[in-house]
């Protein structure tokens, strides 16, 4: 059995979770997921400003605080915090001077194949991580591997799974899916939250057996709970077809069996089959600029008020790229000003930065010449760039999945 925990479900998750997980009880591996489609865009913009960035900087702070502790306790750290620049993150960890053995997984960056995109990253699987773990890395940092690979990689290394151990790989993938969003498995964001104490849910842990089955649990004394319901909720998060496609295995979510266990929930029975011939690629490009504001429409004549301000703004600015939504939150004869008010959201999306900026000036110029009671919830900004996400699929042989081992040797997986 290998005990794998999670301390991060996104870039911005609880900073102290790495220490909590290391100090809270027994662990073999501690994973952290820092990436999402939107995060890749944020990191892409970081990298535009400074080519040495492009990784999750909070992870570096966590390592500065906790990597020594992890090494002392014999806990291997595995995180996709490398983002767009895993080798840069490895260098920054090296500079902390803790003497930790670092493994790096890279090769996901496909900007050469998609030059029109700001970011282009294939979703790599678990085998690069497995190589780094087998080579004795204290910390493995990766680019865009699938979230579940953070769990599958160390489990595969520990149990010596082969590339076609489909059921074991599928079992670990399902476990990885449960762990990847941190406290969403332990009562966070949970529909029946009123039946649990979820003020400060603990992060999840999986005890994974050689056949890929596992017990999902958490450290003693932490908040939240691991129940069949909290695990079910997380299994349903961000999935599509029950045949869940990944780079290493297709995991059949309609074969998962959950049962209560003394320390949480046991997951078993998961069937796997070979993965697709192609790898998915996450593409982000800059779509243009956006800006927006929310007009507050209070009391009588809400529709006429909305019509007036909309007509005024569209006449002054031109209607191109403007979207309007009216939230009819107003109640008649209300006893508070807020519940007497409706909210009119206006958004502009435009390729022209100047037009996005002009939106603000135009909206504010109306302030003394529009509907009675004119005000906005927050003044509009100068406008911000926005990204457009797209998925693409490439043949596997277009991608060079590489593991840089702690001794500096680079192997293609």
């Amino acid at each position, binding site marked *: 059995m290998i005990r794998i925990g999670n301390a991060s479900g996104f870039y911005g998750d609880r900073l102290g979770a790495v220490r909590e997980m290391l100090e809270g009880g027994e662990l073999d591996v501690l994973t952290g997921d820092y990436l999402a*489609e*939107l995060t890749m865009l944020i990191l892409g913009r970081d990298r535009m400003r400074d080519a040495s960035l492009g990784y999750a900087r909070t992870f570096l702070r966590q390592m500065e605080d906790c990597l020594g502790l992890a090494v002392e306790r014999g806990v291997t750290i595995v995180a996709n915090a490398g983002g767009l620049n895993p080798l840069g993150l490895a260098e920054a960890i090296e500079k902390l001077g803790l003497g930790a053995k670092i493994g790096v997984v890279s090769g996901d960056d496909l900007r050469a194949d998609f030059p029109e995109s700001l970011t282009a990253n294939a979703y790599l699987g678990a085998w690069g991580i497995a190589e780094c773990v087998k080579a004795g890395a204290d910390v493995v940092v990766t680019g865009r591997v699938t979230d579940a690979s953070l769990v599958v990689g160390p489990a595969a290394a520990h149990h010596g799974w082969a590339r076609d151990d489909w059921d074991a790989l599928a079992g670990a993938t399902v476990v990885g899916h449960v762990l990847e969003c941190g406290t969403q498995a332990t009562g966070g964001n949970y*529909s029946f939250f009123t039946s649990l104490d979820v003020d400060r849910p603990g992060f999840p842990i999986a005890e994974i057996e050689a056949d890929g089955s596992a017990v999902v649990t958490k450290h003693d004394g932490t908040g939240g709970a691991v129940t069949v319901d909290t695990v079910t909720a997380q*299994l*349903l998060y*961000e*999935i*599509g077809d*029950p045949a869940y496609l990944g780079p290493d295995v297709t995991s059949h979510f309609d074969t998962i069996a959950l049962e209560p266990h003394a320390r949480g929930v046991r997951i078993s029975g998961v069937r796997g089959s070979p993965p697709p011939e192609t790898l998915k690629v996450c593409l982000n490009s800059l779509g243009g600029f956006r800006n927006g504001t929310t007009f507050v429409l209070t009391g009588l004549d809400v529709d006429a008020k909305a019509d007036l301000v909309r007509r005024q703004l569209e006449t002054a600015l031109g209607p191109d790229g403007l979207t309007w939504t009216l939230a009819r939150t107003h109640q008649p004869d209300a006893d508070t000003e807020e519940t007497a008010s409706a909210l009119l959201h206006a958004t502009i999306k435009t390729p022209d930065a100047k037009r996005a900026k002009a939106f603000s000036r135009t909206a504010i110029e109306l302030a003394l010449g529009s509907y009675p009671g004119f005000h906005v919830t927050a003044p509009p900004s100068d406008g911000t760039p926005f990204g*457009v996400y797209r998925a693409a699929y490439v043949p596997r042989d277009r991608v060079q999945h590489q593991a840089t081992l702690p001794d500096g040797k680079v192997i293609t997986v």
Partner: protein
Amino acid sequence: MRLPLGTIAGARSGDKGGDANLGVWVRTDEAYAWLSKELTVARLKELLPEAGEVVRYELPNLRALNFVLRGLLGDGVASSTRFDPQAKALGEWLRSRHVEIPEALL
């Protein structure tokens, strides 16, 4: 009885590019038998009129249905002008909709 669906069903929702996913589950086999009959694609679209193209998947082993709402989020979270651009609360919206629930399931 006419009650919010969330009286007996849990839900979790999120984004995948421009699509939203919405998983709904219940806690007994009897409730699942009812849910899988009640919550057809057509019924989901009645309850969530903002939905366009919807695909439904069944997960009887989890007593769950998973819906994919195609294109609900436009070009993805970073560009969507939709209220709740990541569809995080779509599931809680569905749970708040009133439906006729057999008394035996309450």
